[in-house]
C-alpha cells in the first residue's frame, strides 16, 4: 500500500472551544499536527479529549475557534467532507457487512471503480494481517481482530489524518500490548498523521511523537514523551503522568534549588514554578529508593512483588504515605530509609 502522500502539511486548531450549555468542555485549544506526526491527547476522564477529537472529526461543532487543514477552513464542513479516517473505541464495524465490505465502505462511497476497490481492500487486509478473514462478519471475529478491521477501514481511503478514540481500551491487557505494536508498525509503514486519544499515559508515552495533556478542557502541557515523563510543567500534569507521591510542604530557597520537607525529612528539590512558602512536591515512585543513610525514615505498610523488583508503600513519622520501588527484598513492617536525587524531586506552587 502506498505511503500516504497527500499535499497535506498540517492540521491546525486555533482557539477551539466547545460548550454544552453552561458546561465548558473545551477551552482555547490551540494545536498544530504536522505531516506524519503521531500526537496523543491524554488526560483524566472527563478532561475533554474525546470532545476535542470529535470536533476535529466534525462529529461535534465547535462553539468558538477555527480548525484549518492547510489553508482550508474545515470547522464548518461536515464529517463526510473532511476526509479523515477514524477508529472508534467500540470499533463501530457495520455488523451486517463482511470484513471486506466494511473496509470497502469508504471507497464505495467515493464511487471508485470496482477493480480499484478490490485491490485496495486486499492490500489493507494484508496490512493488518487479516487476509484469511475477509468474508467473515464482525460478530465472528475477536476483539483484537475487529479493531484491526476498523483500522484497515480507516486507512484504506488514504486519509491525510487518522483519528483514534481510545481504540485499545476495550481490549484485555495482553491484547492491548500486541495491538499497540500493530499500531506502531502501521503508522511507521503508512506515515499518516495521527491524533490518538487515550487515558493511559503509558500507551501515549510508547506511541506518540508529541503528547498533549488536557485537564478540565484546557491544554496544560505539550511536549515529547520524554519531556512529559521527566519534566511535567505543573502539579496536575505531574499527577496524571504518574508522579504518585504528591506532598505539600514549605519550600525555602537552597542554593540553586529549594529545600522541602517530606515525611519529616529535609530534601533538596528542583522548582518548576515560582515557589515561595507553600509548595507541592512530586516524586515518581521509581525515583524514590531505599538508600542507606537516606534522610526519610519510614515503615513499610505494603510490599508488592513485581518479579524484578518490589513496589511498596511506606508511612513516614508524620503519617505521609510514600510510594517507592525497591530492588532488594522488603516486607511489611520493615524500616527503610528513602532518598531521591534533587533533579527528580519536582517542586510546584501550591
Amino acid at each position: 500500500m502506498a505511503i500516504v502522500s497527500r499535499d497535506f502539511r498540517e492540521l491546525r486548531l486555533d482557539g477551539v472551544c466547545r460548550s454544552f450549555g453552561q458546561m465548558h468542555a473545551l477551552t482555547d485549544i490551540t494545536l498544530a499536527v504536522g505531516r506524519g506526526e503521531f500526537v496523543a491527547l491524554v488526560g483524566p476522564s472527563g478532561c475533554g479529549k474525546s470532545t476535542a477529537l470529535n470536533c476535529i472529526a466534525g462529529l461535534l461543532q465547535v462553539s468558538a475557534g477555527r480548525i484549518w487543514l492547510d489553508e482550508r477552513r474545515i470547522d464548518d464542513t461536515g464529517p463526510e467532507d473532511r476526509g479523515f479516517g477514524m477508529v472508534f473505541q467500540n470499533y463501530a464495524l457495520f455488523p451486517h457487512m463482511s470484513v471486506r465490505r466494511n473496509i470497502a465502505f469508504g471507497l464505495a462511497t467515493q464511487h471508485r471503480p470496482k477493480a480499484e476497490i478490490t485491490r485496495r481492500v486486499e492490500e489493507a487486509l494484508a496490512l493488518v494481517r487479516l487476509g484469511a478473514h475477509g468474508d467473515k462478519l464482525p460478530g465472528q471475529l475477536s476483539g483484537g481482530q475487529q479493531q484491526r478491521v476498523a483500522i484497515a477501514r480507516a486507512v484504506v481511503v488514504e486519509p491525510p489524518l487518522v483519528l483514534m478514540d481510545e481504540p485499545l481500551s476495550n481490549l484485555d491487557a495482553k491484547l492491548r500490548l500486541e495491538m499497540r505494536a500493530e499500531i506502531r508498525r502501521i503508522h511507521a509503514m503508512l506515515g499518516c498523521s495521527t491524533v490518538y486519544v487515550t487515558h493511559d499515559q503509558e500507551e501515549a508515552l510508547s506511541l506518540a511523537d508529541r503528547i498533549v495533556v488536557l485537564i478540565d478542557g484546557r491544554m496544560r502541557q505539550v511536549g515529547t514523551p520524554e519531556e512529559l515523563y521527566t519534566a511535567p510543567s505543573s502539579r496536575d500534569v505531574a499527577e496524571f503522568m504518574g508522579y504518585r507521591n504528591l506532598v505539600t510542604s514549605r519550600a525555602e530557597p537552597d542554593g540553586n534549588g529549594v529545600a522541602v520537607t517530606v515525611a519529616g525529612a529535609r530534601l533538596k528539590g528542583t522548582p518548576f514554578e515560582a515557589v515561595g512558602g507553600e509548595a507541592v512536591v512530586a516524586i515518581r515512585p521509581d525515583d524514590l529508593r531505599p538508600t542507606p543513610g537516606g534522610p526519610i525514615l519510614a515503615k513499610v505498610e505494603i510490599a508488592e512483588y513485581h518479579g524484578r523488583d518490589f513496589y511498596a508503600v511506606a508511612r513516614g513519622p508524620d503519617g505521609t504515605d510514600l510510594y517507592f520501588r525497591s530492588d532488594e527484598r522488603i516486607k511489611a513492617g520493615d524500616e527503610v530509609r528513602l532518598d531521591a536525587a534533587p533533579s527528580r524531586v519536582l517542586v510546584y506552587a501550591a
Partner: protein
Amino acid sequence: MHRGLSERLWAIAIWAVVLFFVVNLLAMIAAVTVDSFGTRWFNTWLPAGFTGQWYAMVWNEFGLPAILWVTVEVVGAVVLISGLIGVPAAYAMARRNFPGKQAVMLLFLLPLLVPPITYGIPLATVLYRAHLAGTMNGVILANLVPALPFVILVMIPFVEQIDPRVEAAARVFGAGTFRLFVQVLVPLLTPGILAALLLVLVRTIAMFELTFLTAGTDSQTLVVALYYAVFAAGVRPNQSIDAMAVVYMVTTLIWLLIALRFVNPTQIVTRAKQ
C-alpha cells in the same frame, strides 16, 4: 452534525406531517368535548350555547351509572385475577428453565399477537355453549385471555431484574416459598406489578371486540355501550353520544396518565420482541 439545505427541508416536512397529525388529533378530541357541552350546534364554529344537560341525560336516561359499575366490576376482576395468576407465573418463567418452556412462552405470546376478533368469535361460541355468554363472568373470562399473558410478559423482565441471590439469602434464613413471596419478592416487584396492572386496566377499559362479542345487555362495559350509542346514532341526540364519549375518554385518559407515572409510553405498545 452539519445539515445541508435538502436535509433541513426534509426535517421540516416531517415535522409538518407530525404536527398535522397531532393538531388534527387534538382538534378531534376537542370537537367531541365541545359538542358534548353545546346546546345546539348546526352551522357555526361553536355551539349556540353551553349546557350540562347531555351529561345529565346520559346519567339519568342512558343508564350510565349501571354501565360504569359493570365496567368497574369487569376491569377490577380482570386486573385482580390476571395479577394473582400472572405474577407467580411470571416468577416461575423467569426463574426456572424447564423442558417445554419455549412452548409455554409461545402459548403466552399468542393471545397478544392474535387480534381479539380472530379468537373472539370462536371464544364467544364456546362461552355460548357453556352458557357463560351474556353474563358478567363470561365477559370477565373473555377479557382475561389477553390480560393474563400481558401481565406475565410485562412482569418477566421485572423479575429477572431482581438478583436471585437476594432470594437465595432469604431461603438460607429459612423462608418458605410463600413467605419469600410475600415478604421479599412482592415489595421488590411492586413497581413492576403496578405498571403491569395499570396497563391491563387501561387496555381492558378500551377492549372493545371481546366484550362486544360476549356481553349481554346488562354486562356491557362503557366502550361497548358507547359503540351501541354511536351505532344507533339517529335514535339519540348527537350531543348525548358525545357526552358519553367524553365520559369514556376521561375515564381512560385518567388511568393512562396514572399508568404513565410508572411506565414509558413505548411499553404500552411493545411486547417481548424476539
